[in-house]
Each structure stands twice: as C-alpha cells, then as structure tokens.
C-alpha cells in the first residue's frame, strides 16, 4: 500500500467574521467566516479547509471605460448602484458586495464624503449581504470618506478598503471606532504584506479584524507574480508566521485590464465566452494560491466559480 503523504502544519489561518447579524447588533442576514483553514486550499484529506466567499463588484458610477460585455449582461440596473447591488445578491447569488466609491475621487466626479455615506446607508438598508466599502484610492479623500461611511455602517461589521502602507491610520481609526474589519492592501510583496499587518496591529486594529489583499493580477497581466506572492503568504502563515495568517481577498476585476480577454478577434473565439473564462481562470488561480474571498464582475463568472468551489469542497 502506498503511504499517503500528509502535511500537518503548525500554523492556522485566522478566521475573520465579516458582516454582523441582528444578534450581533447588525442587520445583515448572514455573517461570513473567512479563513480558519489549517492546510492548503481544498486539501480536506489532511486538515480543515474553508469555503471561499464569492462577492461581486458594484461601482457608484459606471464610466464609459467599463466593459460593455458586463453592462450588457447586467442591464440597466447597472446605472443605479443600489439596484445593481440588489441584483448581485438576489439574482446572481453573491455572498457579499464590494461597493467601490470611485466617484469620490477629487480627480473624477469628486462626490462628497457625505453623499458617499448616504449611498452606503441606502445600500445597507436595501441589501442584506455583508458589504465591503472601498474608497477611490485618493489618500486624503479616502480618510474622510471612510470616516463617514464607517459611521454610517456602524454595527454592520463591514470591510473597509483599503489600508496601505502610507495611509493606513485613518482607515484603521474609521474601522476600530465602529467595529469594522480592515482590508490591508499590499502590492505583490510578501514583506510589505507582513509589515502592514504589524503596523495595523501595533496601531490597535485587532488581528481578527484584518483581511489581507496582496493584489491579485489577472491572467496575462502579471498573474504569475501575484500567484506566487499569495502562495508564499499562505505557506508562511501555515508554517506559523502569526503576521501572515490573515485570510486573503483577491479582487478578480483586474482580469478585465487585459484587453485581449475580450477584444473582438475571430481567431480567439467568441469574445463573451473568452472574457468570462478569462475571469474564471484568474479566479481559479487565486483560489489555488489561497484566496479566501473573491470579488468578481461578470454574473456568469460568479455562477461558474461557485459551481467549481462546490465541487472542490465536495
């Protein structure tokens, strides 16, 4: 008989609660548990595995550069972030929503933090899934946006995104003040991912409130770097590095930055099917590298990826 080689890791990935139900003072209809596994993805024969959550992106205002393939699929509701978020949960079965407040960017529409917070309130009132609130990436503006949105979402245990090496303090305050979780964003760099976790915890964010985003890159757009960075983070956590044991989130919407994913070109096959598969392939790579939560764009990618996760969980 062949002896089956099993790994028993000394470390364990932290289990982070995302979303609060009414017994915890929130109004979400479910709470997601991210992470908590004791081995590599889906290897249930040797340890505890955890089901990755599949969320969808919602943008406060969809610009002209947004892929038409997605606009066509989702339809008119895409013009209204609340209706769009509702469709993601009710029609497409998303586990959570990632609301990207891109129009707050001073270089774009410069929507006020107050308006952003009121959008967050409306989404929370009308859509009951756990919510990621993501700023525009403008450090100064995000500080204010996160403060107000964090307040507006008090008690809901949202994920506030994204704390970076140079700008983590304001978002950390916004999160801890209202019991939210923080997305710690690093740039395909294991050392920075670790450093950021150290800084956040030293600043007072409890470890069980941090989710790492080591930056996923889509197929053909630097995926190999992101894949290995995530895999290394997961392995380091399993070996016992406490500062690399946060569950990881991967924003797969980056798959759409490769134009070849959906360029019209008969030789490359139907562009709609190709685009979906580009996103699914990027999602599967993130899952194999250890992602505990995915943010997807296309409803079909969500359906296919969920099916694969079901089969992998057995």
């Amino acid at each position, binding site marked *: 008989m*062949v002896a089956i080689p099993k790994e028993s890791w000394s470390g364990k990935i932290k289990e982070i609660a995302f979303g609060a139900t009414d017994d915890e003072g929130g109004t979400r209809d479910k709470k997601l548990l991210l992470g908590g596994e004791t081995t590599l993805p889906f290897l249930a024969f040797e340890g505890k595995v955890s089901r990755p959550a599949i969320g969808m992106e919602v943008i406060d205002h969809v610009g002209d550069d947004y892929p038409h393939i997605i606009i066509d699929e989702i339809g008119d509701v895409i013009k209204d972030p609340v209706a769009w978020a509702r469709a993601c949960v009710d029609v497409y079965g998303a586990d959570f929503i990632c609301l990207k407040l891109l129009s707050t960017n001073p270089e774009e529409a410069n929507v006020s933090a107050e308006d952003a917070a009121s959008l967050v309130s409306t989404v929370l009132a009308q859509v009951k899934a756990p919510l990621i609130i993501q700023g525009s990436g403008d450090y100064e503006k995000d500080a204010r946006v996160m403060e107000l949105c964090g307040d507006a979402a008090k008690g809901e245990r949202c994920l506030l995104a994204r704390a970076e090496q140079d700008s983590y303090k304001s978002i950390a305050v916004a999160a801890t003040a209202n019991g939210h979780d923080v997305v710690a964003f690093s740039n395909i760099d294991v050392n920075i991912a670790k450093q950021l976790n150290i800084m956040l915890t030293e600043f007072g964010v409890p470890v069980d409130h941090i989710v790492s985003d080591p930056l996923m890159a889509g197929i053909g757009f630097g995926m190999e770097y992101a894949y290995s960075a995530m895999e290394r983070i997961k392995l380091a956590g399993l070996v016992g590095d406490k500062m690399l044991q946060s569950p990881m989130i991967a924003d797969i919407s980056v798959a759409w930055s490769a134009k070849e994913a959906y360029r019209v070109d008969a030789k490359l096959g139907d562009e709609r099917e190709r685009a979906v598969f580009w996103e699914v392939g990027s999602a599967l790579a993130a899952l194999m590298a250890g992602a505990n939560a995915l943010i997807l764009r296309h409803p079909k990618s969500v359906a296919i990826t969920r099916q694969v996760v079901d089969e992998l969980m057995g």
Partner: protein
Amino acid sequence: MPMTALDIFKLLAKKNCGECGVPTCLAFAMMLANKQTELTKCPYVSPEAVQQLESSASPPMRTVTVGDLEIGGETELFRHEKKFFNQTAYAVVIEDNSDNESIAERAKKLDAMKYERIGIISGVDLIAIKSKGDAQRFSEVVTLVKENSGLPFVLMSDDPQVVEAGLKVVSKAKPLIYAGNVNNCAALAKLAWQYACPLALYSDDVDELVSLSEIAKSERADDVVLDLNLGAKPLRDALEWLTILRRLSVKKLFRPLGYPVMLNMDNGADVETQAIRATLGTLKYASLIIFGDLDAARLYPLTTLRTNIFTDPQALIQVNPGLYDIGKPDRNSPVIVTSNFSLTYFTVASDIEASKVPARLLVVDTEGLSVMTAFAADKFTPEIIAQALKEYKVAEKVDHRKLIIPGMIAMLKMKLEELTGWEVIVGVKDSSALPKYLRELASG
C-alpha cells in the same frame, strides 16, 4: 531524499588516495553531494555503491519525451521554490470512426489552434487518435492525421494489435501509447520498449498503478506517464490526488510513481467543464491533459495562464532596450516611448502596428518592469528617458522633436521637456486606444 555528503562518504572506499582529484574521500563526497564532480573519477567505488548513488542521483520525476515535447521532470511543489520546468501539454482527441474528410479537417484545425502572444507561440500540442478497435482502420487514420498535421501523437487503444498498427506508421515520431492497464500492461510495455516510445499507465487505484509501473519497468519501458483517472474523478479528489502524486515523487522520491501525471478528459464532459479542470490541472501538477474537445475561447486564456505559471520566477521577461522600427518609418514618423517589459513592449508594438501608422518605438531600460511598476519603482524617470533618447541617437533619425509618452506617466512631462528640449505629448493611458490616437495624430 537526495543523499547527503555523509551518506555518500559511507559508501566510498576511504583510501584518501587523492586519485579522484581531491585529497580525501570526504572532500570528494562533499563535491558529489553538490554535483560538482562525477562518481567515475574514483576508481575504487564498489558496484553496490554505484547502484545506490545512481538511484539517488536520478531525478525525482522522470522527464518523458513525446514527439518533440518534454513533459514532467518537475522537482518542486511550488513554483517560487525554483520553477516549474515543462509546461503542461495539451492534447485533443480525434476518433478513427469519423469519415476521412472530417478527420483531415479536424487535424488541420487542431494544428492551427495556436496563438502568438508576447513573442511566444502556444496552443494545442498533440493529437490523440482514438481507436474503435480495428487495427487496419487505425493505421489508415494515423497516416491521414500525420499527413494533415505536424503535431506529435497519442495513440489511444487498449489493444496491443491496434497500437502496433499505429506504431508501424509513426513510431519515429515517438507517440505516447495510451494506455497500459491490468490486462494489457506487459504487452504494451513490450511494444513501448521495442519501438522506443513512451507509455501511459491507467488505473483507478493507486496501488494498482504502482504494480503497473513495476511491470512496465520490468519490461524496460522506462518512459512512463501516469493516469489515475483524475480526468473523471470528482474535482476535489482529483486535486487531492494530483497533490499526493506530486509529493510522492518530489518529496518522498517514491520511484514507482516518479513519473509525470496526466488527465484524460475524453469522457463526454462539455468544453467548459473540461477547460475548468484543465485550468486546475495546469496550476496544480498535471503534465499532460487530453481533451475530448476544446475551443479557442477557452484555449487562449488557458494557454496564457499556462505561460504565466511556467514562467521562471527568477527571470523577468524583457526585451532589449533600443529604438525599434514599427512599419517603415521615415524622418517625420512619430517617436513613442515605452518600457522594456516584454508584455508591455509586445502589447504596445502590436497596437502601433494595428494603427498602420509607421513609427519608432523607443524602448527604455526599465529593468524589465511595466510602465506603472517602473514608475513606482523610480525606474522610469525623466532622466532615464532622456538618457535613452541620447543613447539610441533618436535626434539623428528624425527631423521633428516630439516624443509621445504613456498616458500613465503624464506627470513626467514638464521635467522631461526641460531635460531634453523635446516637446512631450502625453498619449492615451491604455495602448489599445493607440490605433485611433495615432491615426488622428497623423491626419493632423
């Protein structure tokens, strides 16, 4: 486990005579452990020692050659530990009971399913010809496929007579014989040895697969590929077994399973289901995948993902910096700046080509980083661009003094103008908008 210097030392003659070129047996053992010398340099090793040392020196997973493709030969579980060596090969099935015309057509089509991307051509690698049981027909179809495609083969039949009929036609092309099972293993292994071709072994059970591997070895069929029916098992089991088999070969050095592993998905699943399993197989440890069918909309993302995963993590893929002609530029053609990361270079160059506007592309040495990454890492500064402008003597080749830079690095404009005296034009952000942009620019 590979042997340590001390393990090796115990097997040596301990004469310390120095005939091997180093003064002591221990020094020689250390060099052997580091692969800096060869065992044959010592005249005094016993035959038993030779045997032990050689088997520990043989690679954990054999590299198997099918046609001109190498598969297997992997040494790692994770690509960052070193790299993955031989990319997963993709085969697609042709059945021999179709009519000749459609077989020829399909062979041609599969042969043409390849794409050039960032200077790499990638696509379907092999054709798997599947027999319905008639040796005469099989041999005809193998001939027909050979005439219509240059791809290497997998010969699919359980019947040694059928396989041999195929081998008679194409053994020189080193096809993979698929597959030896409990009933036919010895017979197919004999053929594999006789025709010097690789042999796949099939079983649903790992212990049985070990016995098959031992039978093949005793018949001197050395080039083996393993099929544990993972193309059909539930996904979760497939992933677990792919992991277990890889660990057994590279970590445990378990010889009977020290071979590349394959998936056969010729089982009626739809194209999407096959492509998903193939994606997981490419990421995790399959060296060869047989598809029942495959379309371009899945193959193109899949081959791109494959290229990513099998890229050497230690080497940035880059092109030489310099001034490149796109089309046939004259002294008035635009000069366009970009980075020397391969992906960036090929993307931008093909977008310029698509514009049909001849141009000169100034590829700056960003040490293989993309535009944004290089910018963030201070490898794409006005100084570095100015230096490239001088170094590649751009001013001698054009009459105008205009430079188009990527839209992403618009903030460099002022400083760059100051440094060079050239007018700096900020281009679009994404080069896919370049064709339109350049045409408009050219028409004034």
